[in-house]
């Protein structure tokens, strides 16, 4: 029975060590901040998703047209707006990438880079 307790003890020690590892490896880090997406980054992400959606929709319209699901008229009618949406999304994303963005300051830190 002793071996069983020994195994249990070893397990517990290893587990605790693993759990404590982030603190043991990095006892005094420069920043302990769990970064979250700044509103800027979230906006960019939303735009990226919008762009991907527009591009995918274009691809799908193309495919649906080729397989005959969308008539020529419908295709022409939808192509323009979809292309415009995709272009808008791409433009919006590019302009975002050029503006500087900030980290969210942690409580106690002062703002700015």
């Amino acid at each position: 029975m002793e071996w069983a307790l020994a195994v249990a003890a070893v397990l517990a020690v290893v587990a605790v060590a693993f759990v404590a590892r982030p603190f043991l490896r990095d006892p005094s880090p420069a920043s302990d901040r769990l970064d979250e997406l700044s509103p800027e980054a979230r906006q960019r992400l939303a735009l990226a998703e919008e762009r991907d959606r527009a591009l995918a929709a274009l691809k799908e319209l193309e495919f649906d047209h080729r397989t005959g699901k969308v008539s020529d008229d419908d295709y022409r009618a939808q192509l323009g707006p979809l292309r415009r949406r995709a272009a808008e999304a791409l433009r919006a994303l590019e302009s975002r990438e050029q503006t500087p963005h900030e980290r969210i300051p942690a409580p106690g830190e002062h703002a700015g880079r």
Partner: protein
Amino acid sequence: MAALGRAALLLAFGLVAYALVAGSYAAWRRRRRLALSAQNALLAAFPATLVAALVLIVALARRDFTFAYVAEHTSRKLPLQYALSAFWGGQEGSLLLWLLVLTGYAGLAVWLNRRSRELMAWTVPIFGLIAVFFSFMLCFVSSPFHQQPPPVDGAGMVPSLQNPYMLAHPPMLYLGYVGLSVPFAFGMGALLSGRTDERWIVATRRWTLAAWTFLGVGQLLGAHWAYTEIGWGGYYAWDPVENAAFMPWLVATAFLHSVMIQEKRGMLKVWNMVLVALAFNLSVFGTFLTRSGVLDSIHSFSKSSIGAWFLGFLAFMVVLSVALIYWRLRPPKDGGPPLLRSKTKLESLVSREATFLYNNLLLVALALTILWGVLYPIVSQVLHGQTRSLSKPYYDFFLHTFGLPLLLLMGLGPLVAWRRASLRSLGKTFLVPFGAALVTGGVLLGLGFGSAWPGLLAYTFSAFVAASIVLEFVRGRAAAGGIFRLVSRNRRRYGGYLVHAAIVLFAIGVAGSSAYQTIREDAHLRPGQTMEAAGYTFTYTGLTGVKGPNYTGFRTIVSVSGHGEHFTLRPGQNNDPLQGASFVASIYHDPRTLGDVFTRAQPAVGSKTAIDLQVFVKPLINLIWAAGFLFVFGALVAMWPDAVEQRRLAARYAAGAAPAGI
């Protein structure tokens, strides 16, 4: 040894409790190292649980009757594989299986997504919360490691459980049930971290698909088990335990479809959160139903003490889900639109989005009517002081009302374009499938299938759907230049079509074997006498005795001829002195109808040689099992990793998630 098991479970409990508490604090206060520590705790919970599981497995294999659990569920003579299957045969063991699969899935999911620290920050504590419940139960309420002075032999396993199905059916179901906790944890995590993007959906897409597939296969295995081994003549009895798995599966099906809409159009964010929470909670409810016996004996939870605990956990999770969704539906304090509101609206009631929406509504409606049927005995007891129950007619009505339109929608959806479909282009694409349906319906009507209108509708709709699926493949192949290229470039879509094809096969099989089956239950036959059913003549020629390791019994000899075929069936019974008599059905698989001739026999009262013969002729029933294989194949195609898409998604989230500065 049991001490090791208990210690391992206590360790697991401590780890997941830490993951919950420390993880929540770290996410709230944005502490990086603490979050990582909580994540590690969750990861470590799996090996700890695994040790406990191994202790139980070894005890079962050795028939160590000092373990009360082992003594209760195995015996010396029980073959090894069934002794091992007793792991999930009892309450404590199945809780341990839940925890094992949960920590395994959680660990893997968290590990794969470890770089998305923000997403994991709140997902880890949610996993921890679920695991805390199960590990708490295992440590303090329902432990598999109770010791006792060992009896001479164990109580053994009920004979009807000793078959290969016992090895496959419960684990499959658990892999499914528990799998639904992954999208739930990610979804609630996304709500807590205030993210509105689809990262959580993208991360859990394959998890949901896998869990849904396991749940589906598990149910098919159970149905096949009921049909062949238990042999009462059917495969689904609308039993609460069967419904327990069906409901989350239906909701998960709805969820699989509606996330596609969120991905393509950014709509239905709230609905998806509601669905994922509903699927998970139904999954917990299903486990609770199967374990607590609450519906067999509604007056007391004493039969299984964990009933009250489960109910409490379920209530807590429901309240938590509702609260989180409600919270994110409100406008945030610092202004701006509510997180869960989407900007896009449904543009047209005739669009693919709309058909997905109808499909969702029908699926959820069916799930809820089944839920009502399951809860009805309890509700009626509370309201009327009298237990009333709903049975097959109730369920059949709603299966037809909601299921048949669903079948039709499977064919309509792919034919309709996104956003808006003009009626003219609809007309063109509809022509062939509609024609196929019309022709099928007309022919069948002429052949007399109008006798059962749900069956006729099912067949007609199936023809419609089958034609539309075939068209998709034909047209797509022409556009992509080859079937392989087509499928490999559009795995989700064409994998989905294959799954739809499986459902069509399934629907045809169900319709044939229920709406068009022939039942003869009243044949009292002396040796030499015959009976007729569905064009077959059954001649009862005699009895033989059989003997097995723990039973005696008899088999009848019934010669059957008809439709140019001749075969012999031997239905009978096995009599176990401890358990009683059980039927051994004899089934002939008829290649002519892809169906079965299913027979049962029992000794007639008052005669040593006469029997009461029951015959079910079930056309097309084997399509149901064939559908299972196609279902798995289609799901695998849909799940198959796509390197191009993975790269694109990784790029999207890496760019968006990288914090600036520093």
